[in-house]
């Protein structure tokens, strides 16, 4: 556990110092809301449109973060250092995934108020946070795995999103459908449990799969 803690602290400290991923993701999200305003030609959105705009924006902002997640390790020899150290390689995966989760939470801390301010009509309800947190787990797991896969290929900025987007479709489905009643003024109600179930199942399955297959990615 202490190794995991050390790795995680390293990730977060580097991010704090270099500010590579999170500010870019947050700014991207806010700008995308503005773009959506012009693209949709609406002053406010609600209901399924709001859910769609929010989830898709967060998804694309996450893709930016995924692209940056492993780049520093690849370019500055972090991978080799990891291989030389006598530690379990999957703890690197867990540390990165938790870090990605933290970045996504920070992203949402910025993006949600911006969304409410710029585009959203009904007020944000607490249950939305649960939906987004569950979606974050899925995005973090898949993003970390695919990021590690993509960083060592030649077309890394392209391959990463191409692989991650189809894989994240169930997250989009679950999150958008769950958020939809939460963001409606007319028919608002609680999120449907089955979509939370889909998100939960997705998170569980892919956390296990990623944990199992991550090791071979790091061999030289």
């Amino acid at each position, binding site marked *: 556990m202490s190794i995991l803690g050390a790795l995680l602290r390293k990730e977060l400290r580097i991010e704090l110092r270099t500010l590579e991923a999170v500010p870019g993701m947050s700014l991207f999200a806010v700008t995308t809301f503005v773009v959506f305003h012009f693209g949709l030609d609406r002053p406010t959105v609600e209901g399924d449109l709001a859910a769609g705009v929010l989830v898709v924006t967060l998804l694309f902002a996450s893709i930016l973060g995924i692209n940056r997640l492993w780049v520093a390790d690849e370019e500055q020899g972090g991978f080799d250092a990891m291989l030389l150290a006598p530690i379990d390689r999957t703890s690197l995966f867990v540390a990165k995934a938790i870090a990605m989760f933290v970045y996504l939470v920070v992203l949402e801390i910025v993006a949600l108020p911006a969304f409410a301010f710029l585009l959203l009509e009904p007020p944000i309800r607490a249950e939305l946070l649960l939906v987004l947190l569950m979606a974050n787990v899925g995005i973090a797991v898949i993003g970390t795995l695919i990021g590690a896969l993509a960083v060592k290929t030649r077309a890394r900025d392209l*391959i990463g999103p191409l692989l991650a987007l*189809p894989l994240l479709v*169930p997250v989009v*489905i679950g999150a958008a459908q769950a958020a939809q009643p939460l963001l409606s003024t007319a028919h608002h109600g609680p999120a449907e449990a089955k979509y939370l179930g889909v998100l939960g199942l997705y998170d569980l399955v892919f956390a296990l799969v990623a944990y199992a*297959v*991550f090791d*071979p990615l790091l061999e030289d």
Partner: protein
Amino acid sequence: MSLRALSTATVVTLTGAFALVFFYAPNDADQGFIQKIFYVHVPMAMIALFGFVAGAVCAIQHLRTRESKWDLRSYVFIHLSLILGVGVLITGSIWARASWGHWWVWDEPTLVSFLIVFLLYACYQPLRFSIEDRARQARYASVFAVTAGAFVPLNFLAVRLAQAYTHPRVFATTDGGLPPKMQLTFYVALLGMTLLYVTLWRYEIAAKLARGRVRALKRKLGGDDRIVVGRSAAPQL
């Protein structure tokens, strides 16, 4: 089973299946003659999905044993399933056009799920192509194949849930009582498609193995400089 026997069985079964489709199976009550597309579209879809999962299983074996034969098998499974996938999407689109007038419908959850799965696996070969080192290429491809294989059932579940109460099933002939004549035709078509897939799989494996051996012979007889092995997405033995 020898390749010749397999090929003969494939031809016989497929021809028999198509004969059944056009001369034996009755026309569907709602969809009429258009429903006949079902007998080629659905078996292709089922076999393609099986192939993706089989590719994942072979990938697991490759990661466990690191033998390149498992990587080759995984590759061929996925490659063939992609080809079938193109057929599934095109025939599905034709079916949609004939039934609804649109070249694509979002109402049919299995078709939509299949599109997503197809888009995912379409990245398999570009991924392989972008990694030059053979061993790493095989390893990374296997990691991807396992992840994608786990994704397939989850994806179908998620898409189906998203559509369940809003849209009625359009091509609902697969569940809920096919009349026995149609069932027989369907199963024969499914068998024919399976045999076709297995036959093509055997052919492709044999072709790749043969090419690998010819290359090895060339290297041995002619010296290393005669071989210029370019980058390739396919596993090379």
